[in-house]
């Protein structure tokens, strides 16, 4: 049972299965801003065209009581089918994709390529003076690679935010 005097913050990765309809993202984002909850990352895309379902993955933080509130508030939105606290409900995988542009010539360029190889980042675009790397992984791994690229010539970063799924055979059905 959540304790209101508890002030310890925890992270939560929450999966939300919703109707794929106009305004649903605004409803979810408005709920977070209106009630003062954090959003660290939010991703959304259709996952089942036939049944008009989209899946939203939200990474948030708060006390246990706040996270319970967030889940209850999400669950009572009319177009929401299901809410799952992946952090609480067992082991899960969380991945993020980043496109990272690094600009430089000569040794810097070679160093970027060596590090990209070590991090298993793929080169998806190259010019004489630049690379675009594509990288997938946990957020911390992306953070580490981006930090390494910064002194070498980091020019631009685009990240998707976290998508997550529970491990094991259990499904997340509407």
């Amino acid at each position: 049972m959540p304790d209101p005097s508890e002030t310890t913050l925890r992270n939560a990765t929450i999966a939300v299965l919703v109707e794929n309809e106009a305004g649903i993202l605004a409803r979810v984002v408005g709920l977070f801003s209106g009630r003062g909850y954090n959003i660290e990352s939010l991703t959304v895309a259709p996952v089942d065209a036939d049944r008009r379902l989209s899946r939203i993955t939200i990474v948030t933080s708060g006390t246990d009581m706040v996270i319970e509130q967030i889940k209850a508030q999400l669950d009572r939105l009319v177009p929401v089918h299901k809410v799952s606290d992946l952090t609480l409900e067992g082991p899960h995988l969380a991945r993020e994709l980043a496109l990272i542009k690094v600009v430089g010539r000569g040794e810097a360029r070679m160093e970027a390529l060596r590090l990209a190889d070590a991090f298993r980042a793929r080169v998806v675009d190259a010019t004489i003076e630049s690379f675009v790397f594509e990288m997938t992984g946990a957020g911390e791994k992306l953070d580490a690679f981006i930090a390494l690229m910064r002194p070498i010539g980091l020019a631009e970063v685009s990240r998707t935010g976290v998508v997550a799924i529970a491990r094991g055979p259990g499904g997340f059905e509407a």
Partner: protein
Amino acid sequence: MSATLQTTETRTMTGAEIVLQALKDNGVEVIFGYPGGAVLPLYDALFQQNAIRHILVRHEQAAVHAAEGYARSTGKVGVVLVTSGPGATNAVTGLVDALMDSIPVICLTGQVPTHLIGNDAFQEADTTGITRPATKHNYLVKDIKKLAGTVHEAFYVAKSGRPGPVVIDLPKDILIGKGPYNEAPQAPHRSYRPQTEPDMTSIRAAVRLLKGARRPIVYAGGGVINAGPEASRLLGDFVRMTGMPCTHTLMGLGAFPSEDPQFLGMLGMHGTYEANLAMHGCDVMLNIGARFDDRVTGRLNAFSPNSKKIHADIDPSSINKNVKVDVAIVGDAGAVLKALIECWQADEQPQDRAAIAEWWRAIDGWRGTGCLQYRQEGSIIKPQHAVKRLYEITREMGRETFITTEVGQHQMWAAQYFGFQKPNRWMTSGGLGTMGYGLPAAMGVQIAHPDALVIDIAGEASILMNIQEMGTLAQYRLPVKVFILNNEYMGMVRQWQELLHGSRYSESYSEALPDFVRLAEAFHARGMRVTEASQLDDAIREMIAHPGPVIADIAVAKDENCFPMIPSGAAHNEMILAPGQEGGVTGVTDEGKVLV
């Protein structure tokens, strides 16, 4: 059933006709509205039928409050029709009011044609964007094939689970175009299926705690009213069979009869001494259909510190939001009470009746403080006395009486001194605290109950916020009585300024008031002004006896404060009592000043 069989084949109609047909099929008899360009097709369709009555208000905010009054006094869904742009934005206050108080309302808003949406067209507003946080749910209909289904779904959403307002935004081309009419679907909703039946494990856990309680209390709120009159009857059964004291939130008044000796009065900021001390000192608390609102709990870390708490609510997000509870029950208040009664009867464990008798002796001691006593002396009318006499006189007459209020001191005095023996007789803006609520709400109540006595207990400041509705009363010959406690101040603001801000009455004096008698007469109503205590009873009788609408302007003591009071940031056992009463405390802490 035969009626539905005849209509199962799909018919083609205009969008406006589809909307009206869907309203009819959902049992709508009356809608409150105001026309404008974007909804002209709907008004044209209304003109050509007789099944649905339209009440023309004078301002869209009032249309929503009228629909709320209609809904709260009947248990049905209230329906509103307004135009695009300003029609919709004017309705927003009413929508938030209905959201906060969980009132089922459908608001149809006109919209510019779909091809103009986003072009800043004349009277265009992003209605679904603006009303998203103001409603339980909202829809923009962009495909006429989905129109009928959307209206049916809106009714389901408005009244299922925790009720609330729903907006349907209707572009003009959708209203003019032609499409199929579909009956309400029989299949369950795809995603929204709120739990109404309680889980028996939590019911048993609740009964176990309640049976062992030595100092129990039942704290019931608007959820019991929303669950229908049967839930109120079950609440009465439960409270009587268990011998427990019962207190109500502002929203719950009338669910349990005020004249029952087991009723402790309202709790919270202006609740009774006995209700608040019983909440503070109880060992087991049963909250049914209330949400631990800040007006109720006072300072959270001192709220009922030694009790086990059971919370039954239809909205899981209300549970553990403000107060951590020991037993959570999700379900409809009526279903929960039924299950509690059955489980209580089946449970062998005896109650500690001796301990409960001891508890009642403590409660009777607090009652002995007489926290609602006042002294009516001389010719100046005390506001408490005016409400008390209004209650006593209507009670003697035995007429079916409905009370609405505006917001402020008069509202709290009405809650304290007017007794309610049945649910759905008390309409007040609890959550949002909307001044200007009472007159339009009274209109809606009177439309639903044409022969009943409907009184808006008002303040002279609040009443001016929707005074234009006197015109609606005149047009439909609605005999609403407006009973103004006129102290020439925004009384609650003045009271807080006195208690918290060194009596600096910044902008709270009601300067340049109208002559309410002549104002009433200008709107074809009866106007009365009462200044002497000796005239009060006769004036109340005269007001009630008058067959049409009345404004009774009651001049009351200007500096009266509403007590008892739990100051902001204080606990239940830190109440301020009226001057001259024993017990209680005085003063407000600096932390309390931050709170509202």
